[in-house]
């Protein structure tokens, strides 16, 4: 049967869903509605290789327009401002109306903003999309001292890139360690040391009281009354699911759009995937919302299968990475629900991994090392989590023993 399938949101989840639907359904109309006038592109390089000029815009696209044409997937740059779930219609600002039989919502997340005096609102920059990355790249080229507010992954990746561009970088973080509580303190400290070794200044435990601008220079007043002078400010203080459009509808929202393990929302024929979805994970037996490359892709694919009528549970083990200087940090599984922690390795050259166990099974792991050093062990860990394996802790803690011994065949 031929259906109208609309994918609202032209990011990674959306494009992977579209292609998956087409693989299983050659007849239906598939249309992606994207707010950016760009084909779906990869975001991870924006804070790294794109700022460093190692990748340009053309390198970022997942697929060329030819691929979409060949697979008969339409892409339209449009901003939707009203959703009528009852009549299965979306309305755009230009009064266009789009009818659907099945709808996938993959509108992602948006940056949290600092609350600032109105006259400085446009002076602080954020990085989520290509346009913002372009602007930042252009402006920093003639700035020297740059302050980053927020010591999370995005802030630190930008700090790493700007340092490599010979900028003087200051990172201000409100918490008592970098990258939030989920990252083991030792790993946060190793990452912090690397930043300091490269000349970045890291300020922890400080809140911003006030930002003022004098003769083109910003003054940031911290809660200990210290004052930082800076040429340019970038903030990365977290994100929220982009749900505004659905706030006065029947769609069930709770930290994003609530979905089950099949990417189905509370409304029939409406699915959600990627950053926006607070989904039920059957293996962890709880709901979670993830913001990562791997999740956006796999969740999009899973939604695509379900929309095409192939009932498929989403059971991917969460995984994400962050690259800063020559370090590669990886997280797998869930690291906030455990009764035991086991450490493997103790130096950055060979990598350090913390495993979080519950009832002798790994629930999650977090590691950091010089590029490439922890990847294999983290990948094996994902498999051990997936297979719910009871692990030999002695092997886990001994870096001289290979972890693939633990995989049951």
């Amino acid at each position, binding site marked *: 049967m031929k259906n109208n399938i609309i994918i609202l949101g032209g990011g990674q989840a959306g494009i992977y869903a579209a292609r998956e639907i087409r693989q299983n359904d050659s007849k239906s109309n598939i249309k992606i509605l994207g707010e950016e006038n760009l084909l779906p592109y990869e975001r*991870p390089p924006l804070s790294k290789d794109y700022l460093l000029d190692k990748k340009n815009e053309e390198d970022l696209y997942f697929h060329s327009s030819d691929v979409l044409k060949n697979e008969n997937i339409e892409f339209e740059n449009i901003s939707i401002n009203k959703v009528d779930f009852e009549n299965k219609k979306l309305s755009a600002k230009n009064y266009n109306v789009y009818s659907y039989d099945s709808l996938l919502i993959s509108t992602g997340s948006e940056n949290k903003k600092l609350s600032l005096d109105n006259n400085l609102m446009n002076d602080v920059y954020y990085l989520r999309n290509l346009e913002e990355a372009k602007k930042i790249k252009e402006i920093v080229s003639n700035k020297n001292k740059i302050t980053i507010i927020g010591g999370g992954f995005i802030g630190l990746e930008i700090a790493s890139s700007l340092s490599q561009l010979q900028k003087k970088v200051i990172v201000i973080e409100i918490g008592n360690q970098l990258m939030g509580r989920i990252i083991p303190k030792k790993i946060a400290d190793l990452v912090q040391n690397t930043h300091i070794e490269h000349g970045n200044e890291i300020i922890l435990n400080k809140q911003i009281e006030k930002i003022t601008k004098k003769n083109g220079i910003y003054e940031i007043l911290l809660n200990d009354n210290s004052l930082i002078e800076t040429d340019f400010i970038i903030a990365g203080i977290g994100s929220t699911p982009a749900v505004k459009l659905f706030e006065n509808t029947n769609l069930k929202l709770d930290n994003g759009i609530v979905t089950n393990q099949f990417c189905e929302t509370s409304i029939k024929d409406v699915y959600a995937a990627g950053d926006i979805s607070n989904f039920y994970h059957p293996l962890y037996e709880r709901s979670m919302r993830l913001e990562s*490359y791997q999740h956006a892709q796999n969740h999009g694919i899973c939604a695509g299968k379900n929309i095409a009528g192939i009932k498929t549970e989403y059971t991917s083990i969460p995984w994400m990475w962050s690259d800063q200087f020559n370090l590669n940090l990886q997280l797998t599984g869930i690291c906030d629900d455990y009764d035991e922690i086991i450490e493997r390795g103790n130096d950055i050259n060979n990598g350090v991994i913390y495993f979080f166990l519950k009832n002798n099974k790994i629930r999650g792991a977090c590691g950091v090392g010089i590029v*490439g050093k922890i*990847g294999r062990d983290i990948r094996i860990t994902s498999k051990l989590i997936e297979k719910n394996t009871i692990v030999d802790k002695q092997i886990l803690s001994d870096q001289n023993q290979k972890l693939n011994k633990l995989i049951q065949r």
Partner: protein
Amino acid sequence: MSEENWIEVGSTDSIEEEDLIRFDHQDKTFCVYRLTDGFYATDGICTHEAVHLEDGLVMDDEIECPMHQGIFNIKSGEALSPPACEDLKTYPVKVDNDKIFIKIG
């Protein structure tokens, strides 16, 4: 191709089954794999970002990059999973008297 293109990598027992070794020759890096049905060789650097695949995981016929989990088929070099999208170059391998040779160039 002349006989000189076959370069000795090492002995067959230098690689465990379902594992790989890195092999550097002149200014290039290769990975040589031992799978259940024989030996294979590919370029040693991921096509996505410059990282050595020697630290990656070999599972069945696939090598997975340790940095961003791009996956390649070891036998064909085909990029199977993003962020890898460019195929990995493969090289012929032969075993002679328990020694592994790869054909470069």
